[in-house]
């Protein structure tokens, strides 16, 4: 607790902001410095940070957070269609409406805990997904997905209508595609991270950690735990809504597949891979999964031959033969293997790996700190 001063908080935020904003530079050697992927890093980073506030801090495993992602996307596109192409209202409405959804779903689902809670959230998300394809088609446009059209009212933009073709999303004139789009997402990621940092270090955050640790004790200690859980649920739902609306900002269309259970599962994977309940873990997990999805999947046999071209011919062919199933279409195999390795050997995720290395380095110089890796609920990486 003594290291958590205002100064350390400021330092952390400066370092974090610098790291995020310079991503186009330091991602270059990894072949990931193109706006499309960087946007995805930021957006899924927000999604995972928010998810971690629920799953990481309270231990409640939701399998339905993609529903909020979808709600955020649809709301943002509707804001583009009806109001304006400015992204600010889209983001605000997307976040707010997802929050409202989360109040309803959370209120019902939080009547149960453990596996029953997970199943209830999964049921809600699947229901939303199927409704989007059936009765809600007037709102969601079903399988063709919700898109912009030239004859949309856009009542706030009416005066400035010009040119032909579909308008693009903008922030006071700056188009929200490419790098400007990334920087917009990055700024929101930084804000989202700061909010999560403050929650982690607040009395509220400590109470959530205590609920995760021993909920029975909490009620005998004088806390009504349900509003705390609901608050955490709604906050994480709003993060998901924000992420969803940013997807629409960078690419203004919204389809129901965003609500599918695989999308809910993906954010669970991100959080666990990076480190449940740690500040940075979910971000790392999100980055890693999106990197695999976009970079590894683009490797093919030819690229592999180039990579291994320094080897003798026979060895080169053998290496390509071995590695080939793990790249391209097979990137899921790599991800699956990595996930298994992490869960089995580092149950605290990649962050636990970092902490172990840190303790190992420190061991010679000073006494190891009180099991930094074990404090999942109050990470000490600050």
């Amino acid at each position, binding site marked *: *607790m003594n290291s958590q001063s205002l100064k350390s908080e400021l330092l952390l935020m400066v370092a974090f902001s610098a790291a995020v904003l310079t991503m186009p530079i330091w991602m270059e050697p990894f072949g990931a410095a193109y706006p499309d992927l960087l946007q995805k890093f930021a957006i899924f980073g927000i999604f995972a940070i928010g998810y971690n506030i629920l799953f990481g801090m309270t231990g409640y495993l939701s399998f339905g957070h993609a529903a909020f992602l979808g709600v955020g996307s649809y709301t943002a596109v509707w804001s583009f269609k009806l109001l304006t192409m400015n992204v600010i209202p889209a983001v605000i409405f997307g976040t707010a409406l997802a929050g409202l959804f989360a109040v309803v779903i959370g209120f019902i689902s939080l009547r149960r805990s453990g596996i029953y809670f997970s199943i209830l959230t999964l049921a809600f998300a699947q229901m939303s997904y199927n409704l989007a394809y059936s009765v809600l088609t007037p709102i969601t446009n079903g399988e063709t997905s919700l898109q912009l059209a030239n004859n949309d009212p856009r009542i706030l933009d009416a005066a400035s209508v010009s040119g032909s073709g579909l308008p693009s999303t903008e922030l006071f004139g700056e188009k929200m595609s490419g790098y400007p789009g990334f920087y917009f997402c990055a700024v929101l990621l930084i804000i989202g991270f700061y909010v999560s940092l403050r929650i982690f270090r*607040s*009395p509220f955050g400590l109470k959530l950690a205590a609920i*995760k640790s021993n909920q029975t004790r909490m*009620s005998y200690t*004088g806390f*009504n735990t349900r509003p705390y859980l609901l608050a955490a649920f709604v906050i994480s739902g709003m993060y998901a809504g924000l992420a969803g609306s940013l997807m629409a900002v960078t690419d203004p269309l919204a389809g129901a597949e965003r609500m599918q259970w695989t999308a809910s599962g993906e954010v669970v994977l991100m959080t666990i891979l990076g480190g449940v309940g740690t500040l940075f873990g979910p971000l790392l997990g999100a980055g890693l999964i999106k990197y695999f999805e976009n970079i590894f999947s683009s490797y093919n046999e030819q690229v592999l031959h180039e990579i291994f071209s320094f080897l003798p011919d026979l060895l080169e062919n053998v290496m390509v033969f071995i590695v080939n199933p793990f790249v391209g279409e097979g990137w899921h195999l790599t991800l699956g293997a990595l996930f298994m390795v992490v869960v089995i050997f580092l149950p605290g995720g990649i962050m636990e790996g970092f902490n172990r290395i840190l303790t190992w380095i420190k061991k010679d110089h000073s006494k190891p700190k009180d099991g930094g890796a074990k404090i999942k*609920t*109050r990470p000490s990486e600050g």
Partner: protein
Amino acid sequence: MENVENIVLNVSGVQKTFGGLQALSNINLKIEEGKTHAIIGPNGAGKSTLLNVCVGKLAPDSGTVKFGDVILTGKTPYEINQLGVVRVFQTPEIFPELTLLQNVIVPALAKRDGEFKFNAFGRLFGEKELVGEAEHVLEDLGLENQMHDISASMSRGDKRRLELAMCLIQHPKLLLLDEPTAGMARHDTNRTIDILKRIKSRGMTKVIIEHDMHVVFSLADHISVLAQGAIIADGTPDEVRGNPKVQEAYLGGAHL
């Protein structure tokens, strides 16, 4: 007996059955302010059930529990805690993943914030007063050297003392202790007795359920003896000690 003003907890006509088993039959009990009231009895006598009824964990089939003028029956555990009735469990209920200091800060927050407060943007390290009080309570119970350790790794005796610290920081009006020394080594037991004596000198009302006669007779002002769900004796330690019914039911005739 005493006048009504002094009664902190009033249990009247409480009955509870589990299936066919009569766990509590028509229990009447009055706890006086500032006193240490021990409830003793053989295993299965209904002591813990009685405590569970008091803190809202179990609803009685009939009868009421009153705390001052407030009826506790039907209230939730957190409402009862917020009224000032705080419980120490038989098996220590702590927050194993948190540090000792955090373990004590959480109940202090409950006392200050009430049953719900959304203070997500306050800074924990800025709560100097709260942290100071938590450190003070830990010092009081001799746990100050481990306050930044994770509580899961403590010995059982230390866990029990930690739980006591968690209850004391709330300055309860009534403290309910369920076998506070069970499973403790003798020197730990004596240490706990010392702590409880100190609390007593501050005028806190306590109900203590205990097997260990050494503990009971060093602390209690008043003893009620439960056997098979009914109170069979009630009085000062000396009165209870001399009661043949008690010796029969509880001690199998052995001398106290």
